[in-house]
């Protein structure tokens, strides 16, 4: 699906937001075939806001996701970062069909899977699995670990014949570093980190090609976090998995991702390789975000420039016109209120190339080094 998608379905505003050049920064990690395994274009999710009990009237909508495009290569890890309410989790849910997009297209290996249902959906779902944030609520407390990890086989019996399931579950426990003899225990008998391993084992059960992980380590203690991150790193190579890794912790995302997309108020504002985003950010929001992250090095305290943003993120029911970041941006000018900046390589960098030449949705994109 390498065809340019200029002027295809856009957000509800329609209009001139179609993207003319380089769609998703999809260069690295595309694999030999160069064809992405998962591709998302113009993804939109609006939740209606209603008033009244008998006569329901729609008075607006929460624009949780408002036009997101990206592509994921085979075996690649794409990190998506953003603050709470930016829509990153809603994107994750749409990828695994837990939410229906309002508009836009999700393609898996070139096939449009957005509106699949029944058998066809079931077949695709096998290949795209999810790992959830909260290891405490995402496992059924009344099921044994064996049943939890084996449940995918009940739904997709073709993957493992009945007699073989117990062995498979034990293999999976072994793969994620848990004792295979724990198969009859219940979730409450495990620590947070061990439960997250169980969640990962369940995600792996059907041998998917894509795993969508939504904040998989944010509920864990620091010393346990590293164990789970290392596990995911290992599995990614071992099973040749493509990962969509969603998190708010920029340090963890850098560690695990090949490419990184930064979201703000329902849109990706900048996307590129980890070096492009962390060492050569060009969007002011990315720069502010990076400069705000505390670095565990007291020596860096003195000579580090901090960009402290004023105010809070605007409500997704009432998104600012033009550039959605302009209300908090120190560079905002008249043009920013009128014209929506497109996610493309900014003109200033287009000719020169180099690491600053990556997709950034800012009219006044400038390179600025903020990470010490």
């Amino acid at each position, binding site marked *: 699906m390498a065809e340019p998608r200029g002027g295809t379905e856009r957000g509800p505003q329609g209009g001139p937001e179609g993207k003319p050049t380089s769609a998703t920064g999809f260069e690295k990690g595309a694999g030999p075939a160069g064809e992405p395994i998962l591709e998302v274009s113009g993804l939109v999710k609006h939740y209606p806001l209603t008033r009244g009990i008998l006569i329901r009237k729609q008075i607006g909508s929460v624009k949780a996701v408002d036009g997101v495009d990206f592509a994921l290569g085979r075996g690649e890890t794409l990190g998506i970062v953003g*603050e*709470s309410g930016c829509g990153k989790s809603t994107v994750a849910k749409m990828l695994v069909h837990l939410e229906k997009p309002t508009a836009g297209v999700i393609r898996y290996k070139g096939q449009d899977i957005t509106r699949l249902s029944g058998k066809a959906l079931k077949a695709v779902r096998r290949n795209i699995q999810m790992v959830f944030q909260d290891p405490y609520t995402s496992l059924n407390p009344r099921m044994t670990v064996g049943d939890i990890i084996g449940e995918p086989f009940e739904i997709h019996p073709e993957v493992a014949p009945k007699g073989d399931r117990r062995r498979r579950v034990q293999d999976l426990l072994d793969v994620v570093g848990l004792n295979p003899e724990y198969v009859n225990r219940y979730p409450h008998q495990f*620590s947070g*980190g061990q439960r997250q391993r169980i969640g990962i084992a369940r995600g792996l059960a059907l041998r998917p090609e894509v795993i969508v992980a939504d904040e998989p380590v944010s509920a864990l*203690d*620091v*010393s*346990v*976090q*590293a*164990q789970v*991150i*290392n596990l995911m*790193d290992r599995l990614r190579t071992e099973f040749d998995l493509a990962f969509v890794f969603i998190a*708010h912790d*920029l*340090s*963890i995302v*850098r*560690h*695990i991702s090949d490419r990184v997309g930064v979201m703000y108020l329902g849109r990706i504002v900048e996307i590129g390789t*980890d*070096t492009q985003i*962390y060492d050569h950010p060009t969007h002011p929001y990315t720069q*502010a*975000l*990076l*400069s*705000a*992250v*505390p*670095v*565990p*090095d*007291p*020596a*860096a*305290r003195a000579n580090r420039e*901090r960009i*402290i*943003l*004023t105010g*809070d*993120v605007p409500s997704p029911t009432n998104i600012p016109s033009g550039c959605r970041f302009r209300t908090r941006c120190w560079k905002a000018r008249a043009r920013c209120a009128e014209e929506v900046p497109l996610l493309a390589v900014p003109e200033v960098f287009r000719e020169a190339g180099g690491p600053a030449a990556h997709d950034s949705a800012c009219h006044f994109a400038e390179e600025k080094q903020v*990470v*010490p």
Partner: protein
Amino acid sequence: MLLDVHDLHVEFHTRDGVARAVNGVSYGVDEGETLAVLGESGSGKSVTAQAIMGILDVPPGRITGGEVIFKGRDLLPLKEEQRRKVRGAEMAMIFQDALSSLNPVLSVGDQLGEMFTVHRGMSKKDARAKAVELMDRVRIPAARERVRQYPHQFSGGMRQRIMIAMALALEPALIIADEPTTALDVTVQAQVMELLAELQREYRMGLILITHDLGVVADVADRIAVMYAGRIVESAPVHDIYKAPAHPYTRGLLDSIPRLDQKGRELYAIKGLPPNLMDIPPGCAFHPRCPMARDVCRTDEPPLYEVTESETDRGSACHFWRECLHG
């Protein structure tokens, strides 16, 4: 020394047994100083703070030993009535979750004003004016209008500012902030930490910052106390500890966090899990997870050794702190 905690012990009596949450913690804070207490969940960092503030749930909690010397007098033998006079006026606490710490059915103005009507006997009108002044102080825009609003009408960052305003209200000498920015987004976290640090400098308060975030600590702390299984395992000025930790647990923590400024290879992972407080391992509590552990670690509990090679005041509860420091 403004606050001197000495050999504090706290236990919790539960149906399953006795959890030894704090096992001989000693630390001190001077005025104008920021002490970061670093630890994972269950390390006893919050329980220590609750004991200092006198807000420990008793029962199931019980202070079984130690002293909390604040401005020269031990607070622990004081009656609840006397404790209450100290709390708020002389020492105040900021909690992680502002939404559940604020009363949802009272306006923020009423809650801020209450500090002055109760502790200072001010009239309601004067207290309201004070509330507006405080909200200005913590840079809440349009304070005069917003003073009438309720907690749910504020964003997370703004609510945390209100908590800070409330803690500052009576200009206490000591503030204990328990994970004050953990629930906030990074950009808002930076705003709130900067505000807190600035106000602390202005009022010359002592600040105890309880956190699990090594980044936040590096940003604001003067000294660090690292806690594990209810004990302090390392205590040092902030620069020293990041340069060369003298305890394997501290070293493990520093090595296990991914860095923003580096694309690391595999992370170092401390093996195993934090101990069960009902069944703390004998000897050094960290020995089952320690890469340096030897026989003596399994039997002898290490005291907080003075790190004599350092020019600054450092301590490490490791028999082999020398090796760790140079390793």
